[in-house]
């Protein structure tokens, strides 16, 4: 499959795959709690329903910000599957997130305002680890290009176990799963109602949901890179990582932002940083 078909496949198939993952997530979560759970296709029903609902616009801008959020997320994922520069992918990904934060700030609701502030804190906690993973993948494979990393044929997880664990740690933050669902949680039963997304209704909310599906697939794509020596192992590892995220989500209470920031940076330094230093001695010296 060449790069162009891969990016087009991502743009078309990622929401389907992400939606299915979200549906499986809801069923597995329900089973873990002793419940039966909704049908697998429930997330698709929900989003289709949201598109048929009235779009309550708080102001003229927030709809456009959310469209930008979705567009940049798709762009970063498409760049990733095109085999482009991993750093570029991460920067576009961050830019997309910034649009979500700006959209939440623009609504002037106290709930989304605090949710947006917490989202910024979460980004502050997670981004260093994402950048360290890109740099350490470069150290081992000698390439920042996703195509180069995936095509290196090296068993990257053996070189970078620490970086991988650190990445899984911040993945929980990026997927906004408990204990790091500070900015917006899966259910609106918290002190911030639904945090970041409180003021988005109908089609606006549907855009956020679809963007989340793209986001999930992109992040699991980065997980896949560590196991890219064998596609089957890679896909299995990505799915297993997602299952681990669901397990963590269901067994942990939410952290305060101080603990989130400290623990994420500690994981970054202890797992990512140390692994990076070891790689330096192996490859550069």
């Amino acid at each position: 499959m060449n790069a162009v078909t891969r990016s087009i496949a991502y743009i078309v198939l990622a929401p389907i795959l992400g939606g299915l993952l979200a549906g499986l997530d809801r069923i597995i979560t329900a089973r873990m709690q002793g419940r039966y759970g909704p049908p697998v296709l429930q997330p698709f029903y929900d989003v289709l329903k949201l598109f048929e609902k009235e779009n309550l616009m708080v102001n003229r801008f927030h709809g456009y910000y959310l469209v930008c959020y979705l567009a940049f997320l798709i762009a970063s994922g498409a760049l990733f599957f095109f085999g482009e520069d991993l750093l570029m992918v991460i920067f576009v990904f961050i830019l997309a997130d910034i649009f979500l934060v700006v959209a939440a700030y623009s609504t002037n609701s106290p709930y989304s305002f605090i949710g947006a502030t917490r989202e910024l804190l979460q980004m502050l906690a997670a981004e260093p680890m994402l950048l360290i993973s890109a740099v350490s993948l470069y150290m081992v494979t000698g390439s920042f290009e996703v195509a180069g990393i995936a095509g290196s044929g090296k068993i990257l997880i053996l070189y970078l176990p620490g970086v991988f664990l650190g990445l899984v740690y911040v993945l929980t933050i990026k997927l906004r799963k408990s204990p790091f669902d500070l900015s917006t949680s899966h259910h609106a039963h918290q002190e911030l109602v639904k945090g970041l997304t409180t003021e988005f209704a109908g089609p606006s909310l549907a855009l956020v949901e679809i963007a989340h599906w793209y986001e999930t697939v992109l992040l699991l794509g980065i997980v896949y890179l560590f196991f890219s020596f064998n596609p089957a192992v890679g896909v299995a590892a990505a799915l297993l990582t997602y299952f681990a995220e669901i397990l963590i989500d269901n067994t942990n209470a939410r952290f305060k932002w101080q603990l989130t920031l400290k623990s994420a940076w500690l994981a970054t330094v202890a797992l990512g940083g140390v692994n990076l230093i070891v790689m330096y001695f192996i490859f550069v010296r």
Partner: protein
Amino acid sequence: MFHYDGSSCNGCDIEVLACLTPMYDIERFGVINTGNPKHSDILLITGFVNTQNAEVVKSLYRQMPDPKVVIAVGICAATGNFFRECYNALGGVNTVIPVDVYVPGCAARPEAIIDGVIRAAGMLEEKRNMLKDRK
């Protein structure tokens, strides 16, 4: 679904919460209890409406995007029951906002509440089609 407790004695509220437990698990129909009116299609109200919460009920109703359905759970929400003569009571929920589904009972059984929610979801479909026709 959005649950608002009017002036209920809490009996119906506990039955509503029972619907979320593993025993009844209303999420198997895809229904989630949310705390945000802007994300909900169904407004579920327990208890009668009094002079103080009338404005709250109206405000919640206004904040929900169309199409939307209101369920009055329990006899108090339906008619005001024996509280209707109280100095502060306005009566059932239908004295302030239009109600689509009435779930009788004191307290309403979880099975009855789930049945009411499923009927409400059906009405939601009808209302959606009506909105489309109007356009």
